[in-house]
């Protein structure tokens, strides 16, 4: 007798945003194959933007329509719950904004296959060819970003991770200027990323050995019955943790970030610094809170060390940087540390956890937006050879271009968490969640968590130093005689900077609507 295989039920309506992005990506590939070269860009740009905006609209529809599923969908593979939808919304907004940056002229190489400095390269540049593949690649990456934090079992999560990462490895190598640096970044990112994926997969295998399932809820359940000190569990959890912490760039797995951020084309850096971080933190939260929720007295001390190290390493090493993109990379490392403080803020009650989750979601939104804005400004400050990366080139920018320098200074103050910027409330929310957790009766870390907040505060003060240093350079130093030129921004870039600025100012003055939104998203916690 043949075994009966049931038809899997797929909730197409719920998954529509994800499917739309992937479908558009595939159409984009077909366009590359069949459309004539001169038409490609004019097809790809609207296709990409419309699909992302459409996906965002679908997310909004799901939320407004009130049909947020209370159970995992697609046979338990994906969990489209409140937090996942919030993260989707954030990622889609960020990716629309990043696509506007990608769309700007002159970021991507004319022909990636041509050897840098060769006649082929010159030829390709002269003929004006361009890689319109970046659009479908970006769409695949965004699709992976959507899948990664919504995955409800470790295998789906791994697929999401790879779909997100592989296009990014490639995109990193496509910078138009300083191509060797870009290719080096791409290779480094690929090698280290492949290692971390292997760790993730290995950890998945171990946990499967322990629990007999890869679903997050199943692992959590197995722990309540099985031994909590099983070597398979502990090793599996450690390996999985390495894979995830690598993606958010937590110390000691942060080494790739500065190199990759510096080498990659700046719009792609913006996408990685915002979208990837948001997605990875979402996935990390799901693994640690859902699968390992019963083990929190076990993983929290480990994450304590990682978080403290990440904040300190990010803040201290940023001081020694002389390249603006490397500095922002270290700043992103420090911010990953602040987010980890929020990840540790677990409570005994669901209400408490919802407060922590709200804080993290809020932080992700405001940090992502400010980051994209900051990188958009970076794309505008140019030397003859490309972007003026070296910090000394930024001296006196406040005189040459007061508005641009003022906007950038404001973004830096938001990173530093000065009140009346959105960054302040993000930091405040996370620290409050952590201190609330620390003072909860019977908390496994207690005063240690208070200590971590103090470490975070000290790291903030150190970090403020290098943000302020850039402001000093821009405003209090005399401009160099042969200083960089400020590119006339395209309408897209202006829109990106304007949106980022508006959100950073608006949320800094009146954060309540965004907080409410995050609170609604977080109230139901993760579905299992």
């Amino acid at each position: 007798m043949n075994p009966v295989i049931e038809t899997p039920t797929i909730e197409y309506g719920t998954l529509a945003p994800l499917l739309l992005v992937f479908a558009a990506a595939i159409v984009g590939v077909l366009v590359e194959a069949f459309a004539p070269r001169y038409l490609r860009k004019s097809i790809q740009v609207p296709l990409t933007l419309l699909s992302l905006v459409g996906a965002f609209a679908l997310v909004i529809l799901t939320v407004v329509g009130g049909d947020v599923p209370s159970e995992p969908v697609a046979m338990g593979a994906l969990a489209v719950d409140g937090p996942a939808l919030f993260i989707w919304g954030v990622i889609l907004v960020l990716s629309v904004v990043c696509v506007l940056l990608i769309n700007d002229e002159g970021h991507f190489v004319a022909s990636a296959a041509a050897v840098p400095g060769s006649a082929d390269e010159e030829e390709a540049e002269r003929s004006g060819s361009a890689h319109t593949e970046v659009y479908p690649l970006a769409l695949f990456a965004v699709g992976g970003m959507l899948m990664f934090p919504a995955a409800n079992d470790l295998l789906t999560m791994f697929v999401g991770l790879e779909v997100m990462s592989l296009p990014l490895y490639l995109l990193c190598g496509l910078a138009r200027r300083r191509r060797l640096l870009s290719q080096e970044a791409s290779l480094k990112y690929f090698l280290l990323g492949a290692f971390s994926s292997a760790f993730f997969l290995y950890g998945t295998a171990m946990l499967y050995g322990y629990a007999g399932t890869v679903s997050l809820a199943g692992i959590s359940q197995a722990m309540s019955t099985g031994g909590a000190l099983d070597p398979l569990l502990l090793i599996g959890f450690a390996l999985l943790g390495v894979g995830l912490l690598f993606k958010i760039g937590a110390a000691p797995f942060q080494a790739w970030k500065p190199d990759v951020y510096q080498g990659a084309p700046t719009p792609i850096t913006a996408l990685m610094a915002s979208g990837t971080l948001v997605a990875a933190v979402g996935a990390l939260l799901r693994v640690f809170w859902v699968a390992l929720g019963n083990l929190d007295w076990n993983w929290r001390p480990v994450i304590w060390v990682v978080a403290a190290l990440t904040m300190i390493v990010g803040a201290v090493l940023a001081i020694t940087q002389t390249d603006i993109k490397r500095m922002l990379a270290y700043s992103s490392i420090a911010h990953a540390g602040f987010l980890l403080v929020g990840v540790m803020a677990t409570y005994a009650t669901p209400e408490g956890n919802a407060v922590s989750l709200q804080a993290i979601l809020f932080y992700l939104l405001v940090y992502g937006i400010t980051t994209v804005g900051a990188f958009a400004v970076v794309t505008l400050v140019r030397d003859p050879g490309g972007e003026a990366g070296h910090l000394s080139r930024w001296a006196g920018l406040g005189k040459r271009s007061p508005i641009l320098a003022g906007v950038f200074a404001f973004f830096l103050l938001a990173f530093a968490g000065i009140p009346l910027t959105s960054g302040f409330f993000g930091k405040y929310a996370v620290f409050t969640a952590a201190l609330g957790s620390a003072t909860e009766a019977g908390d496994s870390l207690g005063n240690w968590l208070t200590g971590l907040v103090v470490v975070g505060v000290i790291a903030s003060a150190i970090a403020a130093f290098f943000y302020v240093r850039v402001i000093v350079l821009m405003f209090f130093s005399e401009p160099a005689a042969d200083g960089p030129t400020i590119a006339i921004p395209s309408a897209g870039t202006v829109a990106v900077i304007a949106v980022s600025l508006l959100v950073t100012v608006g949320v800094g003055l009146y954060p309540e609507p965004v907080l409410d939104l995050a609170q609604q998203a977080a109230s139901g916690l993760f579905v299992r």
Partner: protein
Amino acid sequence: MSSLWLPILMVVPVLGAIVVALLPKGSDKLAKQVTLLVSLVVLALTLVMAFQFTGAPGDRFKFAATYDWIPSFGVHFGVGVDGIALVLIALSAVLVPIVVLASWHDASGVKAADGTVVAPKRSVKTYFSLLLVLEAMMIGVFAATDIFLFYVFFEAMLIPMYFMIGSYGGAQRSYAAVKFLLYSLFGGLLMLVAVIGLYVVAGKGTFMFPELVGVIQDPATQKWLFAGFFIAFAIKAPLWPVHTWLPDAAAQAPAGAAVLLVGVLDKVGTYGMLRFCLELFPDAAKAFTMPIIVLAVISIIYGAIVAIGQTDMKRLIAYTSISHFGFIVMGVFAMSQVAQEGAALYMVNHGFATGALFLAAGFLIARRGSPHIADYGGAQKVTPLLAGFFLIAGLAGLSLPGLSSFVSEFMVMIGTYSSPAFGSGALTVAAIVSAVAVILAAVYILWMVQRTLNGPTAEPVKAFKDLNAREVWVLAPLVALIIGFGFFPKPLLDVITPAVTSTLSNVQVDNPAIAEKGAGQ
């Protein structure tokens, strides 16, 4: 019933700042006039409000207004003033128009006598709109009755001052600005932890100050939270040993900004001690009184001695301020009615006296482009008017009887000497030791006056012009206030007294002033 007075006082300068920032290019003069007008409007409004203020019993905070700001965090836009906050708001409102007048040419660049550019010409509009933003924040920080709102202003007001020092200051401006910002930010961040801790431990779901008084009972928790607040305020005030940013910042800042920095911004530190450290954490405040008094006495003596050795006029004045802030802190923590009234009064008088001193020194410096005392001499014969104002401001700095600072310094010392708060004679000793500073003050002020104003006239000084009308208008009101409140401090004290009484009742020290009143009824 919420009153619109305080929100209006904050909104007017912000609107003014926006208008000034949006003025077309080349309208520098208009920008200055608009700024002066706006600051005078704020001053007029403040005075009208102040005359309506009564220390009548009932709600402690008058002109109170509370609006929801961030309900998710329990944060309100809560404002209101008691007597102490009122006089400090009035101090800010008085100083700003004076500073606007004094800074009329500050953004136009500074050139030394030999033609080298000390500070290049900068945007005039930016300077004056920063000044107005700062005014709104200064009013906000003293008016806030929500601790979170206070923190927001406490930190945010660093940014305009940072740009005023960094963009418009002297040769070392960027070093001084960064040092100022980092010291203050670090203190502020520690305070942030304490603010969050207070919110979490209190569990009230609100940051409104009146609801948080007396909530924290656990002594250990009180001590930690007290420390978080106190370190921030000690850096701000500044108290020895975290004072080193002040001489740099004050010396490099343009004279007008230095007046606001030392005259108002630093008062936020001592005001915060009086309002938040004492009332929220009374037990911790009592437990830490002796170490803090010791730090205060060190500041008093150390600031005075180091001031004597300064060769730079602005640095010298900054060090005298460290000495004066020592007196204020001592008065705050002496826990007696007289000492605290003296401390609150000192905050105002110090603003006038040091403001006048900084501005007079600034006018002298502007005539030569050098802050070094050695570059001057015999200015009195050439510029009698400037010399006269400089002398009066200096005498106010050394607390000569008949000038306003004498009253407050005397009250602080007498209040500390006879404080009933501690049975031991420790406070008496502190008061006696601090009295040495009175002699040191005479040395640092009179020696500076002697070297700059008296003696043979130095060659470059001969070309000096005396004060013009604008400069007289800057100094005359301050000197009038110094002399006026020196003979008749009652209006200020009438306002301050009830506020201090309610502070002390929240701290729960045995207060003979209250006991006497009770007995008399």
